């Protein structure tokens, strides 16, 4: 099947007073229609920046230095702000982490929900209101007519996130970006929201890029998983490959860091050390100072991305060794 989203060698820099920070360092991935790709990794590894680049909403001091982002074969980089405005909320939507602050406190839910419909679908206010009521029903909000007249502060966090979802899906986008949409919610609400998103994705057949650092969430919704470390993609593959045959030492560490609820003795197995700052220059593999498998070559040369299977990649020198082993054993 043709790819819905293709990101090629994306590099994002930030200008600060002192220097230029390289937040995303040449990442590539793709997403098919109807597929959910989870981006995981520690705080600060560039998950949000990656998704914000796709919708063209980087912070003002950020810039895409290089690369290509194609939606349905259409290059997004280099589009004018006007062209992007037409796509945002229409073909690409985004849901954010903080339901408490992501809605405008001074406008009603109705106003905010009608907006994308009136902008993109050129609906009249009346039509948009009708559609808004349907949308609120769809995301499981009781008393939708009354909710339209309320302000965000009158709704609970879970309800607000449902409103956000309704808003993002109003124009039936082909790509939904979700940046930790459930992190700020408590566990039961979180499960409900995940289920809702999954169901809506199925109904609409859109592609979803879902940012999270919660491996439990990944297990629940992902088709594919992309693991990021310090601005790079270190491993990407189908969800069962990543969980059952993780290749990259960092992925293994992350999986080990999932708390095991069945085993009370099993504590969080956190990867020792911490992620480098954006301005730290690290020779070779950026993970090597924390990697239990680090070899000589790791300190000297940045690993290339190795193909583990046709749809599974790992950016680690260990892969070369196994490849070589495999070569030796087969020859």
């Amino acid at each position: 099947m043709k790819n819905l989203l293709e990101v090629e060698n994306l590099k994002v820099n930030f200008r600060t007073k002192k220097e230029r920070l390289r937040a995303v360092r040449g990442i590539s991935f793709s997403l098919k229609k109807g597929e959910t790709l989870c981006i995981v990794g520690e705080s600060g590894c560039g998950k949000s920046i990656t998704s914000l680049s796709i919708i063209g909403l980087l912070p003002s001091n950020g810039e895409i230095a290089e690369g290509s982002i194609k939606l349905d074969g259409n290059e997004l980089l280099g589009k004018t702000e006007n062209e992007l405005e037409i796509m945002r909320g229409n073909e690409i939507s985004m849901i954010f982490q903080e339901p408490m602050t992501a809605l405008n406190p001074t406008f009603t839910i109705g106003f905010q929900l009608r907006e994308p419909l009136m902008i993109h679908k050129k609906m009249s206010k009346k039509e948009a209101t009708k559609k808004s009521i349907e949308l609120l029903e769809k995301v499981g909000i009781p008393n939708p007519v009354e909710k339209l007249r309320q302000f965000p502060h009158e709704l609970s966090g879970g309800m607000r996130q449902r409103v956000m979802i309704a808003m993002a899906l109003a124009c039936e986008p082909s790509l939904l970006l979700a940046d930790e949409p459930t992190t700020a919610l408590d566990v039961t609400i979180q499960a409900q929201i995940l289920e809702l998103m999954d169901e809506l994705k199925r109904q609409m057949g859109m592609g979803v890029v879902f940012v999270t650092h919660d491996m439990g969430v990944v297990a629940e919704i992902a088709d594919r998983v992309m693991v990021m470390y310090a601005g790079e993609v270190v491993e990407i593959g189908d969800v069962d490959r990543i969980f059952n045959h993780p290749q990259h030492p960092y992925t293994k560490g992350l999986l080990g860091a999932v708390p095991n609820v069945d085993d009370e003795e099993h504590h969080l197995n956190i990867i020792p050390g911490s992620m480098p700052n954006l301005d730290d220059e690290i020779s070779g593999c950026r993970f090597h100072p924390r990697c239990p498998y680090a070899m000589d070559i790791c300190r000297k040369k940045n690993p290339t991305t190795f193909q583990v299977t046709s749809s599974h990649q790992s950016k680690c020198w260990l892969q070369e060794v196994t490849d070589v082993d495999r070569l030796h054993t087969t020859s």
Partner: protein
Amino acid sequence: MLVLIVRRLFQLVLLLFGISFIVFMSMFIAPGDPAAIIAGPTASASDLEAIRASMGLDKPVLVQYLDYLAGVLHGDFGYSYQTGQSVSDAIISRFPNTFKLAVASMIVAMAIGIFAGIISAIKHNSWIDFSSTTIALLGVSIPNFWLGAMLILVFAVNLQILPVGGLSYSIFSLEGIKELVLPAITLGTASAALIARMSRSSMLEVIQSDYIRTAKAKGVKKRSIVWVHALRNAMIPVITIIGIDFGALLGGTVITEQVFAINGVGRLMIDAIAARDFPIIQGTVLLVAAIFVVVNLIIDIIYALIDPRISYD
């Protein structure tokens, strides 16, 4: 909302009692004998005695104060020592000028201040922002008498397109509007500068907020992001400044009234103080206090209208 209004009006009554008492007492401590002011320099001791008796100035202070309060309750604020005009007539003849001037100045200040502040914020760190913040700084620091005099020199004396001063025509006539222009600009400049600074910083903060990012992610056009989504939120702190300025303007603006020869409350008060015309002083001080409370009340009501999170019930 009603609760708020009732509570504030109650506060207002208490405040006016307190202020009237303080002002009344301070006039007794202040030097200067009202009887001497009324009688003039040639009056004899027995003349003064007679005046004191007729005005009740020989009674104990507290009794005088109670007499005054009783009068106030009947709408009688006393009579000017200088002119014999009743205090309420004196204020009523001056207040419309002050009110017109305050409203006109505030319109100038808000139109310029909000617009400049917001343009500054969305073009922040550009040359537009730089020039606007520089002009704002100038606006705050230029003294009114100088600005007023310069405006008169240029527009009234040299170009002769606007009158030199006075405020005598109806506001609904061209003359009435023309004579307001220069004093309104003079008074409005300082407020405009403050409002611009406040709008700029408030807007800068708002456009970085999550809900603005949400609006962008929906595909809302840049123009309506700024003038619809951000503006309402950004105005919340600015309204405080506008209220304070407006209250101050309504209390009279001595220097500008002087420069433009406008008969306003400011000059009434200053003249009264210079002449120890106590009833007028007392009346204008009460007026200023009442204006202060009422303007604050209006601001709180506007707050609630703009920000749905605020409720006074």
